[in-house]
């Protein structure tokens, strides 16, 4: 028997040295969508979702989030050894988004660059790999990004929530960190709740199957295992953020784990920006870092269909208040808001057939 437990902890302590969010400025209210397909009858899962403009995609949005992370991290981009972008809406099917981002922030050529994919947890799995990369000493800094311009079939339940946005997390040595990553854990099974086949424009999903056997099982599995190994309960954390496909699921899973609404509120952004897929839990974390105080402990749990969850246990350091104001807050991006109607939305999201 070794002392090797389920937790993932690097040899050298690792933390978040910089973080940055991005949310495009357009919003479509869920009621505008329901007006189109149900005469506005019935409830809607969120208030509104963020929509990218005609000149925005995962590459451009990642560049802005990465620049914000560098403003807070104050590191030389030439010291970054990995630029990893997790998304399910990479602009090219073949050609990395990550090289575009690495070039734009000045991290080339002495770096790895790769695109990650695991539905909505592509960004957090890049984070876990980045922790290993920095923790092993192979890299001083690793830039990990979760960003999406999510696709929702017109009239489908996902159209109300599939949104655009995300965050960049710059990992580095714990002694430079604004938040130390105490440990992380990953929990995966083959659960076909949501997928998109090659060349298909929109994803397919298993309706109610996306709930109990998918989202709840994996988030609870990851969070409970992490907390059990760390010897913690919900009361040990000041803040928690879970993947946010809508407003209801993260509230419910938080309650099941013993978290209060106060603990999850700052990171619960889906009612106002929608489900930013790979960006969802990570942008929630940035909103928490915008308000957290030194010593605060944070639990973050992502969820990606197909399926799996990555759980992280973090502690905020004294450095956070020093760098927080170096870049726009996540709330500042959310406040930047231009409402659009369904017709404009179809144009911006390239749903109009022009020929």
């Amino acid at each position: 028997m070794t002392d090797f437990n389920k937790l993932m902890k690097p040899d050298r302590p690792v933390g978040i040295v910089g973080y940055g969010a991005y949310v495009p400025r357009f919003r479509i209210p869920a009621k505008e969508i329901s007006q189109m397909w149900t005469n506005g009858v019935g409830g809607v899962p969120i208030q509104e979702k963020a929509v990218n403009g005609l000149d925005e995609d995962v590459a451009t949005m990642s560049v802005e989030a990465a620049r914000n992370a560098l403003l807070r991290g104050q590191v030389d981009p030439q010291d970054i050894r990995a630029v990893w972008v997790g998304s399910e809406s990479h602009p090219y099917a073949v050609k990395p988004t990550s090289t575009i981002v690495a070039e734009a922030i000045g991290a080339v050529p002495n770096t790895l660059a790769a695109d990650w994919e695991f539905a909505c947890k592509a960004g957090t799995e890049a984070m876990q790999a980045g922790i290993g990369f920095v923790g092993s000493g192979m890299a001083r800094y690793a830039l990990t990004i979760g960003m999406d311009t999510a696709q929702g079939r017109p009239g489908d339940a996902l159209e109300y929530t599939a949104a655009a946005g995300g965050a960049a997390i710059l990992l580095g040595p714990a002694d430079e960190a604004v938040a130390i990553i105490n440990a992380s854990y990953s929990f995966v099974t083959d659960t076909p709740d949501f997928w998109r086949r090659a060349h298909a424009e929109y994803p397919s999903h298993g309706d109610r199957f996306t709930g109990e056997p998918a989202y709840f099982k994996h988030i609870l599995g990851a969070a409970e295992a992490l907390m059990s190994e760390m010897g913690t309960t919900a009361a040990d954390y000041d803040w928690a953020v879970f993947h946010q496909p809508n407003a209801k699921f993260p509230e419910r899973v938080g309650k099941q784990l013993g978290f209060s609404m106060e603990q999850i509120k700052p990171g619960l952004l889906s009612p106002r920006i929608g489900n930013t897929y790979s960006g969802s839990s990570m942008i929630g974390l940035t909103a928490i870092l915008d308000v957290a105080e030194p010593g605060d402990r944070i639990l973050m749990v992502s969820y990606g269909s197909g399926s799996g969850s990555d759980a992280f246990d973090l502690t905020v350091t004294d450095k956070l208040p020093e760098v927080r104001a170096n870049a726009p807050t996540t709330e500042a991006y959310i406040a930047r808001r231009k409402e659009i109607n369904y017709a404009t939305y179809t144009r911006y999201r390239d749903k109009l057939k022009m020929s």
Partner: protein
Amino acid sequence: MEVSRHWRLQEQRYKLVGETCDNCGVKLFPPRDVCLECAAPAKELYTFTGLGEVYSYTTIYDAPAGFEQQAPYSVALVKLEEGPIVTAQLTDMDEDEMYIGMPVEMVTRKLRTDGDEGMIVYGYKFRPVQFEMAVK
């Protein structure tokens, strides 16, 4: 589409990398290798802050090939705080927000795509300064 041409211009388009003159200190954009003021060699790279103001502007309704899907859009002459004037699209704003002297900041955006199968070209655009810390 000229893939190699876009690739060659990448550094200036993604990051506003120009040049500075060792002799008189003038900043050049786009890079020209020779100072426009004193004609001395100017090959030292300089990354512009991306901050500037609108010098003049117009709105394009009848867009050239490759830009049709974005019309109508606004184009401005932007006077960078280091001096040079660049032509670029404005973004993240409504047309009635524009005015001469408007403070703007550089963002990296999608400029155009070459049909459904060609490359996606990225580069600088400018938008109204969005957040207070950007003007610090």
